[in-house]
């Protein structure tokens, strides 16, 4: 694994906007898509990441099975509200399909990839990984390979959902370019799979007493939402959604995996697994430096790195009310002052590709940059 400086395509901004419709390459004036550098891997390294991703997904699915079997005690430990238990169990036992997820891995080429966290419900940086970095590779290093067949796997996954002639409504929060772009990309792949689609803002979803409605008052029967389950269930229409009146993608059982307490339960299930870091709901159970993460948090908010009981790094935010999970601290590798995290994708629970985000600090946040990769 190496970080290489590269010369950006002279017209890349106009190119990605016009050809790809990629409009959030710059966020709040700071670069987000960054092609002044790229990461180079060897084939064996990519094979290791792909294999670890497949294994982590199988462990994650086994964990859902276990949590559903244990029931109340497990949900309570994970701080999953009781209102959601039945929907989780129902969707899991019915075998409701899932579309995608992103494992954030620490990888430095010096040992096995290790799971930092699993974004199982509302992962983003998808369009960048699937399309933008592929388009960059074709322009810059056409002869090289890339761990990335996300696009065709998404199209195939939509076909397997069995939605038929029904319409899939795609919901994102209003006026957020990155979320809207991600959802519009997913809608693009669904259209290519032959599905009828509509857009609706999360805020515009209506409830007529019997079912959900879009702005034209058309019924919403299948809802793709880029909006976390734990927020949905706590909001006024949450109880309606949990009745199963609409099919939801991701399914309700993803609430078990998008919850960071899952890191502790995975470690209990497979202690010492080479792709896991020690994790527990009790800080005293972890030896050495550790990271405290809110059970529910987003985009690197409210993270603390602790050594000998002292905070050595932290990020702000408004999360943490539900409690924390503690994970052994594995320092990210550093390349020229940059700390990369591998975002390794599963589509329909199969390893599908990866994207890399790097930050100037050891905690990856929403300000991190997306940097393309290739392998030879």
């Amino acid at each position, binding site marked *: 694994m190496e970080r290489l400086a590269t010369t950006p395509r002279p017209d890349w901004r106009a190119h990605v906007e*016009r*050809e*790809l*419709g*990629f409009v959030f390459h710059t966020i709040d004036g700071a670069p987000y898509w960054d092609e002044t550098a790229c990461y180079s891997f060897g084939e064996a390294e*990519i094979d290791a990441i*792909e294999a670890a991703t497949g294994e982590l997904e199988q462990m994650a699915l086994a964990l859902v099975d276990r949590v559903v079997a244990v029931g109340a005690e497990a949900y309570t430990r994970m701080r999953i509200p009781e209102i959601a238990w039945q929907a989780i169990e129902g969707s899991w036992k019915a075998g409701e399909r899932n579309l995608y997820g992103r494992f954030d891995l620490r990888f430095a080429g010096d040992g096995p990839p290790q799971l930092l966290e699993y974004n199982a419900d*509302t*992962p983003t940086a998808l369009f960048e990984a*699937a*399309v933008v970095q592929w388009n960059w*590779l074709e322009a810059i290093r056409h002869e090289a*390979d890339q*761990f*990335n*067949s996300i*696009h*065709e796997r998404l199209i195939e996954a939509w076909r397997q959902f069995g939605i038929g002639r029904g319409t899939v409504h795609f919901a*994102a*929060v*209003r006026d*957020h*370019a*990155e*979320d*809207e772009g*991600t959802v*519009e*990309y997913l809608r*693009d792949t669904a259209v290519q799979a032959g599905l009828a689609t509509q857009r*609706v*803002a*999360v805020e*515009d*979803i*209506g*409830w*007529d007493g019997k079912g959900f*409605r879009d*702005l*034209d*008052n058309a019924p919403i029967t299948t809802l793709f939402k*880029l*909006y*976390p389950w734990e*927020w*949905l269930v*706590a*909001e*006024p*229409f*949450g109880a*309606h959604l949990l009745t199963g009146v609409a099919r939801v993608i991701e399914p309700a059982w993803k609430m078990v995996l*998008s919850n960071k307490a899952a890191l502790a339960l995975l470690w209990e299930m497979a202690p010492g697994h080479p792709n896991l870091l020690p994790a527990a709901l009790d800080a005293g159970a972890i030896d050495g430096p550790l990271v405290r993460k809110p059970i529910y948090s*987003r*985009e690197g908010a409210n993270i603390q790195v602790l050594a000998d009981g002292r905070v050595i790094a932290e990020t702000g935010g*408004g999360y943490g009310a539900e409690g924390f999970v503690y994970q052994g601290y594995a320092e990210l590798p550093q390349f020229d002052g940059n700390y990369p995290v591998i975002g390794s994708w599963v589509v329909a629970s199969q390893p599908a*590709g990866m994207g890399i985000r790097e930050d100037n600090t050891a905690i990856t946040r*929403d300000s991190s940059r997306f940097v393309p990769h290739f*392998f030879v």
Partner: protein
Amino acid sequence: MKKSTSIRLVLLGSASMLLAGCGDDGPPKDARFFSSIEKCSSIATEAECREAVAAAERTHAAEAPRFTRKEECEAEFGPENCAKQTASASDGGGSLFMPLLMGYMMGNMLSGNRYSQPVWRGTNNQAVMPGKGGGFFGVGSFGSNATSTSAFRPATQVAQVPRGGFGSTATSYRTSAGS
């Protein structure tokens, strides 16, 4: 090989812009109509309503058809549907006749390209809004005894469905809902 062999986009990028370029200029699919700023409160936030009304009023003032004689205006918009205005200097001064501003259209709420338009009462109690080429689009109707304060019945008006039951957490955190 682990990379995609080809990637095609059908909604994003240049393909979608081509489609957008040949769309019509009628009301957008998600158009919502209201007759006053008070009636707007069920559709959008107060700030969005004020902005929509102000923009529609600017369009009305700048672009509503102008007639020097009342009969000419009524021939186009119907009896009692025109009002005498004092013409601005740019309109040459004096007085002129314009259709009455009866309501507002707000649309494209989702795309970031939100816009609003004035709604006028036309012949046969139709509700009309301006199109791009100087034409009008019928967007609903008024009752036969409509007055200048009557609400019109938009063509796309639908039963009121409660909305806004999702989305409040994202608003409170002011963040992406992704991760």
